[in-house]
């Protein structure tokens, strides 16, 4: 992209035959031809830059769009939904005039290339999405997936990612309250670094990304624009990693959390004084995205003078300024008479703010540089009319064979001693082991409203000090289940997150998702994606929890090898009074343990099959969404009415994993009895869905049993909170000390 002569619209019209580097910018030939057709001439260099980033897979969802439509088409009726898919983040009504916005996004590719900055800027980006809705961010969560725990590269990637998340989030003053850490060799070259955030606002404070009102000013504020992150969305996040290509490190942005903290405070102060008509954060595709989205969502056009953008590097070309993904920048639309006050607030917080343009009464986005017009486009064609692909998809040939390789037929422990050894091995395995070495690097306490944080089933934040109103969030996903059956796997991810929210006493309201898959150009991957979306949309409809937004991350593959299909689902819930929340930890000796739900012989994709047999095959556990709903209702009622003192959802690792965690957290043991009709192995290690284990005070036993009986939820008394060991009668006994050692030493030994 040469800078002389300036490639203006006029110049482009006069020189139709100039070849532009569309392929280098990640565009396909037919996509370039479409741009020429839209404009009626060849694009200028600046226009090409804008189209190339906005039409990238990451920004345009061109491969996924045809499937994602189901989230809208199948969306359940919900009184709670205030803002749905399409904005920076969805907004949900939680009562008392409060609204909550939340979203999960991926920062997978940058985090592999440069773990610290990739993960840090992932937090930064999701937090700006939350601020852009008008909300104060109140918490973050981080679902993470890495290669094998003992692989040398994991020791490079994981500590960097964790330090990056902590370094950024801690410095912003956001408690980190949840998430997951999963190890599987399928993520070796493609770790998944998903980041979620929640924000709280009053209903009247909801802001949208649109530029309306001719004459209103467009203000760019925050960090100066530099050469970092150019092409991050189009090149890094939209292609498969390949050894032959040059290092992509320069495409990763560098974060400055201090600048972002100032950006939060100054934006919220501007909102409070009602100075903002429309707002958009600058994330992927930077100014190209912010200007084209603001303009296309508003009522008029927009004129921008690019010379006014404050730069870190004065040698940047206009194309680079438009594509730069420099962090900690926002764009606001402000009425002319309020501009002075807006700039004053920015100055108070030492934030650079510059008027770079205004809303016009036309319908074009025009961008000027050195007096020449370098962009003249219909902003909709950039922001919304990107290509849409009906990628071919086909059930992979190996799927039948995989499902036929039944995990239920794997050799099981034959003696009590063997069962005990396997339980101990499971509890100590990297996926089942305590993650406190990781989570202790995150601030859980800041803002003073954290009611529950990991390792609880869901993170919970108090929203209103007066009433005790609170929100809960859980994120879950199981790539092994999804590999065996993507439709069911996606539903299981939703079911688990939904159950985790209910286990803590909150009512599930809405969903955000981060869909992590391989290359959409592979029909097998595309089939996994289509099945997962269909499964998730169907399940959301049945559970009455609409998808409010999220993110798709494709091309998570190295060479021909794709990751397991990994839909990660976040469920947001509300609780009327956080004083009624239910923790995981056993609270009091003598309390009775009840297993809720049905236990079947289900070992496909289980932790047991992985840890003991290094096996993945068969079918994942069955999904019964009506049962999930009933279980959730019982858990919420029991929490509200004080019938249970602790509860834990059953998922990977089965019942024994849940009991061990509750025991270790509470410092109190348990005596378990294998119920009639079940063998000890299935009782302890099956991963049947729709289950939880609860501790019921003796005084509440009758009332609790009556409730479960009346509602038709199987509730089986399986033991009592007691002593300083976990004992399975007739089978084995493991002291808390022994369990704690096994559970807590694994991760530090591998990574510290």
């Amino acid at each position: 992209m040469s800078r002389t002569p300036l490639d203006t619209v006029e110049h482009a019209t006069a020189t139709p035959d100039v070849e532009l580097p569309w392929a280098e910018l990640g565009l396909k030939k037919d996509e370039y031809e479409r741009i020429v057709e839209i404009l009626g001439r060849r694009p200028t260099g600046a226009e090409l830059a804008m189209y190339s980033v906005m039409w990238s897979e990451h920004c345009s969802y061109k491969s996924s769009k045809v499937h994602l439509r189901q989230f809208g088409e199948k969306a359940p009726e919900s009184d709670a939904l205030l803002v749905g898919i399409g904005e920076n983040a969805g907004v949900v009504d939680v009562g008392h005039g409060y609204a909550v916005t939340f979203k999960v996004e991926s920062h997978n590719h940058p985090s592999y290339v440069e773990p610290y900055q990739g993960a840090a800027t992932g937090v930064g980006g999701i937090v700006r999405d939350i601020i852009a809705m008008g909300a104060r961010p109140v918490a973050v969560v981080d679902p993470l997936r890495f290669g094998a725990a003992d692989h040398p590269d994991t020791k490079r990637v994981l500590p960097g990612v964790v330090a990056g998340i902590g370094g950024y989030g801690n410095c912003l003053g956001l408690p980190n309250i949840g998430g997951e850490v999963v190890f599987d060799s399928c993520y070796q070259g493609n770790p998944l670094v998903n980041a979620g955030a929640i924000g709280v606002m009053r209903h009247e404070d909801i802001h949208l990304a649109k530029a309306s009102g001719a004459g209103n000013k467009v203000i760019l504020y925050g960090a100066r624009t530099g050469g970092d992150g150019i092409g991050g969305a189009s090149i890094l996040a939209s292609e498969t990693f390949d050894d032959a290509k040059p290092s992509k490190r320069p495409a990763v942005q560098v974060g400055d959390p201090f600048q972002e903290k100032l950006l939060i405070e100054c934006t919220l102060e501007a909102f409070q004084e009602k100075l903002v008509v429309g707002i958009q954060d600058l994330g992927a595709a930077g100014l190209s995205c912010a200007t084209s989205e603001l303009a296309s969502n508003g009522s008029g056009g927009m004129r921008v003078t690019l010379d006014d953008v404050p730069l870190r590097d004065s040698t940047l070309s206009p194309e680079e300024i438009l594509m730069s993904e420099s962090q900690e920048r926002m764009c606001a639309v402000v009425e002319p008479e309020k501009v002075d006050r807006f700039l004053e607030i920015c100055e108070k917080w030492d934030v650079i703010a510059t008027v770079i343009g205004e809303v016009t009464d036309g319908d074009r986005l025009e961008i000027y540089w050195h007096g020449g017009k370098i962009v003249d486009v219909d902003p909709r064609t950039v922001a919304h009319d990107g290509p849409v692909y009906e990628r071919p998809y086909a059930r992979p040939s190996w799927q039948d064979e995989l499902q036929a390789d039944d995990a239920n037929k794997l050799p099981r422990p034959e003696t009590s001693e063997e069962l005990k050894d396997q339980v101990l091995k499971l509890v100590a395995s990297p996926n089942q082991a305590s993650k406190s070495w990781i989570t202790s690097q995150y601030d859980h306490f800041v803002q003073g409203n954290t009611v529950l944080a990991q390792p609880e089933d869901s993170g919970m934040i108090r929203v209103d000090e007066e009433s005790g109103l609170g929100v809960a969030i859980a994120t879950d996903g199981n790539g092994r289940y999804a590999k065996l059956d993507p439709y069911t796997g996606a539903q299981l991810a939703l079911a688990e997150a939904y159950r985790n929210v209910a286990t803590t006493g909150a009512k599930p309201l809405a969903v955000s998702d981060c869909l992590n898959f391989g290359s959409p150009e592979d029909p097998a991957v595309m089939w996994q994606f289509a099945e997962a979306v269909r499964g998730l949309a169907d399940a959301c409809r049945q559970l009455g929890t609409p998808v409010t937004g999220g993110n798709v991350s494709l091309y998570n593959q190295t060479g021909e090898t794709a990751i397991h299909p990994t839909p990660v689902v976040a469920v947001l819930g509300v609780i009327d009074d956080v004083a009624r929340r239910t923790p995981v930890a056993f609270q009091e000796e003598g309390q009775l343990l009840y297993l809720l739900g049905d236990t079947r012989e289900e070992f496909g994709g289980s932790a047991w099959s992985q840890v003991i047999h290094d096996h993945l095959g068969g079918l994942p556990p069955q999904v019964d969404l009506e049962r999930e709903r009933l279980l959730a209702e019982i858990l919420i009622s029991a929490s509200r009415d004080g019938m249970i003192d602790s509860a834990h959802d059953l998922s990977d690792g089965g019942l024994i994993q849940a009991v061990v965690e509750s025991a270790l957290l509470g410092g109190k043991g348990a005596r378990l009895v294998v119920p009639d009709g079940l063998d000890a192995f299935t009782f302890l290690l099956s991963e049947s869905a729709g289950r939880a284990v609860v501790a019921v005070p003796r005084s509440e036993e009758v009332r609790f049993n009556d409730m479960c009986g009346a509602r038709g939820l199987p509730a089986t008394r399986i033991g009592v909170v007691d002593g300083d060991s976990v004992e399975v009668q007739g089978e084995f006994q493991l002291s808390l000390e022994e369990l704690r050692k096994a559970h807590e030493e694994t991760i530090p030994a591998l990574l510290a």
Partner: protein
Amino acid sequence: MTARIGVVTFPGSLDDRDTQRAIRLAGAEPVALWHKDKDLKQVDAVVLPGGFSYGDYLRAGAISRFSPVMETVVEQAKAGLPVLGICNGFQVLTEAHLLPGAMLGNDHLHFICRDQKLRVENATTSWTSDYEAGQEIHIPLKNMDGRYVADEYTLDQLEAEGRVAFRYLDFNPNGSLRDIAGITNEAGNVVGLMPHPEHAVEPLVGTGRTDGLPFFTSILKKLVGA
């Protein structure tokens, strides 16, 4: 008539609003103070809250110590104004030479967030009189640069004068010399510590303990003579 306790907000302060809440829960009146403003609004005491003021750039607390508000805080602290520095506030107090020593990066090089056990070594300061000397308490700790260091002479002097206010118990989370978690000046009006008492004032949130509340009731009693 209650006490008015100022809480300074620096750019990058994070626990300023939490500290205001803790002051309110203790029964005193929190007053927001701004780093660019020398005026302390006639408060009876000042808290420098936790956070990453100026992003911890250069060195934690090194830039904040030059802010206009600190000129007044230093001047009045020397005249007896009670000042509490929590975490980043403690770092600012050492940088401002209201307290001796300095804070280095944690010896394990990680941020650490945990419920930390402490022993109250000095229960006679303006901020600790509601504790018993020797009392063992749990206060959340969360920092990157929490390793307290000073030369041997200063450490011996602190010990001899009873100016080690808090010591880490069971586990030294950052490599602080002599397990020091917090110290006081000679007069007992200026106290700094790395753990966060403002996060241990309500049974429902944080660690679920209220071991930090006496910081705020101590100062309230001292100021209103209750």
